[in-house]
């Protein structure tokens, strides 16, 4: 890609501000720029306050209250999970990215719909198959990119094309919404949390059955397992990783497989959410890959690899979800969707420029 891309500079060599102890204001400013979670929390608070103020002032078409926020988390689940998939792939370095993730969702969703909805397999088996197929589709990416050295961008662009077409062709473009598929809707409905549920809004079940376990697993994988260490190693410096004996190709390939697996899980969720296995589940509009990548970048993942945290991605996903939810209320009918586009685009450009700036000036975010 263009050499206008920033390369993470050595924090020890980052320019200092002259050597005097920085004042508290400057320190705070620097902390905000470099600690991504801090910035995201601040932005989240800003959005909440702003939207709530608008709501009280009667400017919104509906109440922006805790109940609404809780229900809107339904959309946060797939976005956050796909953003985690992108996190794995982008952290693996060497220009890692996965544009095909949305179409993997579509295709595995259709497979799930066919085996469970049309062929009557039990749910558990169908989910297992969906996940396996997702992993396989991810493995195609992984083999091309990690083993054969294909550039990730164009390769996943090509597989995006290929998988999308298969998803559409596999059932002649028709969605599958047989009764047993429709009954999956209960997977994603809202529930009352036991004991304390009385005083807080009902949270969508999917948050607990899909999102939280995924967050925990991915966090553990990255922070506590040998695989996670190797992943960060190859993303930070894959030459040094080779010289230290890390199996670079295998580690990177697995990242793409895991991304595919996550997409498979998302496919099941989305099928439940819409009570239908749709051939364009992950590819309608601009597709799910774009928001997933945006959230990952917003969450502090460095596009050059080696840097990224689950907490950042989670905060970014919630921020985008609640921002989008608010925007939807700001306009009549469906007009809000356009402004969601604006928000997403502006956020992406802004935080990419921000990431680039903090990398050059302060040696990257933490």
């Amino acid at each position, binding site marked *: 890609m263009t050499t206008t891309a920033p390369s993470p500079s050595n924090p020890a060599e980052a320019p200092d501000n002259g050597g005097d102890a920085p004042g508290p204001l400057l320190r705070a400013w620097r902390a905000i720029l470099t600690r991504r979670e801090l910035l995201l929390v601040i932005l989240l608070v800003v959005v909440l306050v702003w939207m709530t103020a608008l709501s009280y002032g009667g400017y919104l078409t509906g109440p922006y209250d805790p109940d609404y926020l809780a229900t809107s988390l339904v959309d946060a689940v797939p976005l956050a999970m796909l953003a985690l998939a992108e996190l794995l792939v982008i952290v693996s370095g060497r220009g890692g990215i996965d544009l095909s993730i949305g179409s993997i969702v579509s295709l595995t969703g259709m497979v799930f719909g066919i085996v469970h909805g049309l062929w009557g397999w039990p749910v558990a088996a169908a989910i297992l198959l969906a996940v396996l197929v997702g992993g396989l589709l991810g493995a195609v990416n992984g083999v091309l990119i990690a083993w054969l050295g294909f550039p990730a961008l164009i390769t996943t662009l090509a597989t995006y094309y290929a998988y999308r077409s298969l998803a559409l062709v596999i059932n002649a473009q028709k969605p599958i919404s047989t009764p047993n598929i429709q009954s999956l809707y209960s997977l994603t409905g809202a529930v009352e949390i036991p004991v304390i549920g009385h005083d807080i809004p009902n949270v969508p079940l999917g948050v607990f059955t899909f999102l939280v376990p995924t967050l925990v697993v991915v966090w553990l994988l990255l922070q506590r397992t*040998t*695989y996670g260490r190797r992943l*960060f190693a190859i993303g930070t410096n894959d*030459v*040094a990783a080779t*010289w230290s004996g890390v199996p670079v190709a295998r580690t990177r390939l697995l990242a793409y497989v895991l991304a595919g697996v996550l997409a498979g899980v998302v496919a099941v969720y989305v099928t439940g959410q819409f009570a239908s296995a749709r051939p364009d589940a992950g590819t309608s509009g601009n597709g799910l890959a774009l928001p997933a990548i945006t959230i990952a970048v917003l969450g502090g993942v460095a596009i050059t690899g080696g840097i990224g945290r689950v907490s950042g991605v989670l905060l970014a996903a919630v921020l985008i979800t609640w921002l989008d939810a608010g925007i939807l209320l700001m306009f009549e009918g469906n007009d809000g969707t356009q402004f969601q586009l604006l928000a997403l685009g502006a956020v992406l450009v802004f935080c990419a420029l921000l990431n680039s700036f903090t990398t050059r000036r302060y040696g990257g975010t933490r």
Partner: protein
Amino acid sequence: MADGSGRAQRLAMTGIAKRYGAVRAIRHADIEVAAGSVHALVGENGAGKSTLIKILSGAVTADSGTIAFDGEPVQITGTTDAIGLGIATVYQEPALFAELSVSENIFLGRELRTGPRIDWAAQHAKVVELLDLLGVPVRDATAPVGTLSIAEQQQVSIAKALAGDAKLLILDEPSAILTDSEIDVLFGVIRRLTESGVAVVYISHRLDELFRIADAVTVMRDGATVGTYPLAGLSVREIAELMVGGILNEDRPARTVADAPPRLELESLGLAGKFHDVDLAVRPGEIVGLYGLVGSGVAEIANTVYGIEPATSGEIRLSGKAVRPTSPRHAQRLGIALLPADRKRQGMFAFQPIAFNISIGHLGVLSKFAFWVDRAGERRVARELIERLAVRTPSERQPIGALSGGNSQKVVLARQLVERPDVLVLAEPTQGVDVGAKEEIHRIIDALAAEGTAVLVATSDLPEALRIADRLLVVRGGTTIAEFGRGASQVDVLAAAAGAGEEAAPDGSEVTA
């Protein structure tokens, strides 16, 4: 002119000095180069040669001193100044665009035109003219430069410099990557250049070559020019003496190495195109040095032992058993560890904490079921190694990038020690490390050997090799040619590495040392 040839003076640098912070890269340098002559510049690593060249090419500016070009005082404040004067540099790595043609590479940025188009015919004619001048055959000017051999690319680089009306051409280690016949061609090119009045500054470690091509040589040592001498009447050994300056070897306590069967043996080891017929043996507790000039094959030999590029002939034996490491991972499983030469590129994970940098590659033993990282164990090992190697850091959690060169090198070294290797290969162990840390690292190496590790040090730092090695093998032209024991003189070793006894006078006849 100093060489008494009656040629006009092309370049005179007087009283040049340059420091980088507390480090004086050049204390005092004087050099005069005559037009139409080949002027060699020699000196050990760190003597100041590359800084002097950077000043001349405008990459850095001198702190003090004057430069005169063709008799006129000049200021060189940037690369455009240098290019404007007619100073061109050709480095080892050809700085060409692989997908563009020979003609385009030579004329990039100053294309010949007819109207809005490039005048291909005129450019081609000029390319033919330039290559003719250099005495090399005309090639397909439209072929992408990436399809040419390294030697041919070098020729294109030189032609490019000439196209820019170079009056002073600097060649930085040009022969390091060439075969013998290609070097002959290069020398032919250089002679044609000088015949047309171009002055050539020729930097090389290969002292024997200088006798074939250079008229005069300037020797640098410890940041200062020692003097300029005509090559006629000098020998390789004498030049080596000037480079080294009669520094005595520091006395080190004699080490006794137990007489045990060798732990590492290389027999007739070869890698096609890089090295051949390498024989060496390292006993447990012994430190064997492998010394050679840039391009001699030392680095490749070390890398092959570590599995980076498996050998194509010969045998490696570990404790008597033949092995064939095919990757660093494999080598580590066999018990061979290697400290890489280029710390930043091959060794460090810049943003990551010290503990990460130490444990990476050894997660198998620092985890449960090779899956769950044993963080307490990792912390313990990291702290032990930090203490043992005296790494200056408040905590193992500090990012390695915050450490100085010496300390980060110790961390990368610590990584090699996590699993107590049987054989430890150290490639350029103190490159880019300050003097204090250098001492410490040498002591660590001694201690490691004392514990029974077989140590192989591959280095192009001669004083280091002499200090640390029990036996020193010299590599030249891809094979081991000499062995020295303790107490060898620097001059002897340098001379052997640089080709003493192989000087040829400009007319091709041999000269005895």
